[in-house]
């Protein structure tokens, strides 16, 4: 069966520090991969999605970036965090049926 992992589970970072969040998927090949952000008490905002290695589409202009160095690995990065980057970051994957399966999320607090 397929599983999706995210780490770390929680993270507290100062303003201006770099960020790297990792997501990996097991049990499937060539998945579509997604990064979402959810502010406290709010809905889901799609940040990036990828249909293959090195193929990244950005939905929202910001100081975040994403990379897909391997088929089942998706990384979210920032060179300098802002207070507004705080939130719950979710990675998801989908196959050909468009159903998305989400990871457990990373709670990021920028101080």
């Amino acid at each position: 069966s397929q599983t999706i992992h995210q780490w770390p589970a929680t993270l507290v970072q100062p303003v201006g520090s770099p960020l790297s969040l990792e997501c990996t998927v097991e049990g499937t090949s060539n998945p579509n991969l997604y990064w979402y952000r959810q502010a406290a008490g709010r809905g889901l905002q799609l940040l990036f999605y990828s249909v293959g290695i090195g193929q990244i589409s950005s939905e929202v202009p910001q100081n975040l970036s994403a990379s897909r160095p391997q088929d089942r690995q998706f990384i979210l990065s920032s060179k300098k965090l802002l207070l507004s980057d705080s939130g719950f970051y979710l990675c998801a994957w989908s196959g050909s049926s468009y159903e998305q399966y989400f990871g457990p999320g990373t709670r990021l607090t920028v101080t």
Partner: protein
Amino acid sequence: LAKTTQPISMDSYEGQEVNITCSHNNIATNDYITWYQQFPSQGPRFIIQGYKTKVTNEVASLFIPADRKSSTLSLPRVSLSDTAVYYCLAIILTGGGNKLTFGTGTQLKVEL
């Protein structure tokens, strides 16, 4: 790009049927509607997906009328454990990459 709206909250009692509606525009014939359930501090969980008429699985039904301007998630006989936030997602299929629009979410509260 489709805009999806949902009621902010709904209340129900155990054993009742709950219907949550998502309003959306510009949904083409083959575009998909998907519903997710989310508990606090967890990732959303897939419930059901469809693109026309009616779809039913072991936990829910999805109704999409002919005008495709809305869709309804139906939860039969809810229990306390169904208290959660429910999101609809419109998946607009395009040749240049699919467009995804999540609804604003509906907080469902189920009481005894």
